[in-house]
């Protein structure tokens, strides 16, 4: 049910989040959206796609697209290591359907229970900084975790419109 709320409001709800690392930052996605976490496998490149779309992989017979979250957030490239992995998330499409997408992250942390009083709305940065993909910030004892609106992260069109 919390996924429903997430779709329709612009603030993060309390609940379980899967947190992961990307560069020096920590991010969280609603745990209910996470289907599984797989090792980084060989990705088939799809030509003529935006740079952050790495390609497609075979998830037990299903072909799913894989996105590099580093490229997506313009964080620069690092070599993949044994912590690098793919989080398979379920995305709600605007058309009403659902699809699976893999996102490449530097490493998975934990499933954290984030309470309502830990969450603060996204601060407004100077113009040009994209905050629409972030639903809120969770202040936790070891730092700040950005809670992602995963549908917006994956929806390429909204993104490229902002990036340019």
């Amino acid at each position, binding site marked *: 049910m919390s996924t429903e709320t997430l779709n329709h409001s612009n603030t993060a709800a309390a609940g379980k989040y899967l947190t992961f690392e990307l560069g020096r930052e920590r991010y969280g996605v609603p745990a209910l959206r996470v289907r599984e976490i797989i090792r980084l496998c060989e990705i088939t490149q799809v*030509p003529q796609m935006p740079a952050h779309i790495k390609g*497609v992989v075979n998830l037990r017979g299903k072909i799913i697209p894989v996105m590099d979250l580093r490229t997506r957030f313009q964080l620069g490239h690092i070599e993949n290591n044994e912590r690098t992995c793919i989080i398979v998330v379920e995305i709600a499409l605007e058309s009403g359907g659902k*699809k699976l997408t893999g996102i490449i992250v530097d490493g998975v942390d934990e499933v954290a229970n984030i309470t309502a009083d830990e969450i603060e709305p996204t601060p407004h940065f100077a113009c040009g900084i994209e905050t629409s993909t972030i639903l809120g910030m969770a202040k936790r004892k070891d730092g700040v975790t950005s809670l992602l609106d995963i549908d917006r992260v994956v929806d390429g069109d909204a993104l490229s419109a902002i990036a340019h």
Partner: protein
Amino acid sequence: MMNHCTASTVADLLSKFALELAFAAPGGDSGLLPMNSFLMKIEDLAKAPAVPAQIVAATGQARQWLDRVFETTATFDADALVRLGSWQAWMESAAEKWAQGSPVPELPASWEGAPAGQKSPASGNADEPELILHAEADRELLAEFINESQEHLQNIEQGVLVLEENPADADTLNSIFRAFHTFKGGAGFLNLTAIKDLAHELESLLDAARLHRLEVTSGIIDVILEGGDRLTEFVRHIQTRLAGGDASAPIRVPTLCLIARVKSLLSDPGAPVAFPAPRVVEAVETFSFAPAEPVPVGVAKVDAPAARPSTGAASGDSAAGFVKVDTHKLDSLIEIVGELVIAQSMVVQDAGVRDLVSQELTRNLAQLRRTTNDLQRTAMSLRMVPIRNTFQKMTRLVRDLAAKQQKQVRLVMNGEDTELDRTIVGELSDPLIHMIRNSVDHGIERPDARIARGKPAEGIVELSAFHQGGSIVIQIRDDGDGLNKERILAKAIENGLVKPDAALSDSEIFGLIFAAGFSTAEAITDISGRGVGMDVVRRNIENLRGKIEITSTPGEGTTFTISLPLTLAIIDGLIVGVGPERYIIPTLSVRESFRPTPEMLSTVYGRGEMVNVRGRLTPLLRLHRHFNIEARVANPTEGILVVVESGADRRCVMVDDLLGKQEVVIKSLGEQFKRNGALAGGAILGDGRVGLILNVDALVKLEEPDTELAA
């Protein structure tokens, strides 16, 4: 002898008359003129000396009725159609008696005074029953009813086609009877009175026919066919109402006139009554036939109306051997089996497993492979249905078209049992209708023109299906006029489709009729229409990953050959390597592949790099450049050129090397990659990685981006 001859001509005219009658509707004048001309011919024949008085009288009667129609509104009303229907049926049986030399029955008493009209001659529509749905309460039941009806309607239509060949076919009469009966039951249960009433009358008619109380004439066949049409109409209306139309709006389909025709056929005293009552009762109860005639009772017969694979169907029209399954379940089963096959091949190819030296393991793996292959074959066959249904729809089409155009056309069908993927069968119907219509409309000439050319008056359209290699071939051949090469070429040059100096082969010229908008309104008359919608036909076929080719000999006819994949789920693919990536090219689109010599390559100013493939300049597409991948070879003479074609266009696709040929299960890449027209989908290769399937159509049509650069 003379009598026999005249009688059979009359019978022939009567059946044509019946056909027109079947399509006539109250309030319209469709069929009025042809009916009149047939009647005039019968009148002429009736002037001969030996014609029985009853037939002469009956003909006069029909003339009176028809004249009344002309004199009043020149449109039919329900009464007139009923009367003409009963007249036709009576005449038919009378003509038969006459031909056999038996005494001709007296005219039915009910005809007396009929022209005066007992009913008001108002338009027949006013008192047609209305049908109001309780869509909310009965939604599911109605959906189920529609679902089941489709099958019955199909049985009826197919049955009628069988009856036309063999009017006494007991199995078919039974199966149509049962279809109407079930219809009646369902409609009664849902309180669809108008449907129930119609089905009830038709059921009685069939009942009489199957109990030999009524002889099946072409008039009766037409009534059955029309009954089926009306029921189809009802079902369609209900379907649209359920699909979100205004559910409370009444459904009105004219049935009264048809019901009246059925009643008059049933009460017609001219019809022979063969069986005494007690035996009839017995026959009803046991659902079998009194063995008075050499009807093959109980002979298991692979039944025409069965729309399912015939495996294990002892008696095709008993539904006992079939299970209805949701297509989604079926599709997911097939998908899972596909995954199993891939998993199996991954295990077999696994390096660790290969290193093990164990005879038992080898044996077990071989057993596993056999079982998975069997499983896959069986799963695939679940999707396969015979093409019979689609073909049989064409019989009706040809029959209607030929009658409308007063041509004589016979449809010959071969290989109706050939099985195809059900998705393909569904999609094939439209293009086939289009092509058959073209063949009958424009291919087959009128009887007089045919005779003038020394051909038999009756034209033949041959529809065949057969396996060839890994694909299914469907052929439509007519023995008509053939395509006019010069005119097509002239038209194409005029339209700018072809350069005036282009040297095209015959099949390339014929292929031009598939070009979009080729045949326009101002096209030369005798090929106009040949191109209308042909681009749609080709697109439909290509969407099914099929190909279509034409051969034609002037004056002798035209053949359309469609080759289709066995199933949409699997393609035969050529796997090619470009840099680190592997791509799959559907083998159906591959013409050849080779390593070029330097002298085959040239750069044509303004057209980019070209390859001389056996005298034909074909544009070169460097796949690595197009896809922006680092290739292992840069020089075409070190790589491989794959010649792909789509329609009449070809292109040489340059790849690093050929990696093999494999059957692959096609998977969708998802929304995100739809924009990428160069890809048709993905497939999981033997090592578990994804290979991308190239969309040859898009590659061939691609404007070479580096034309300027190369020039």
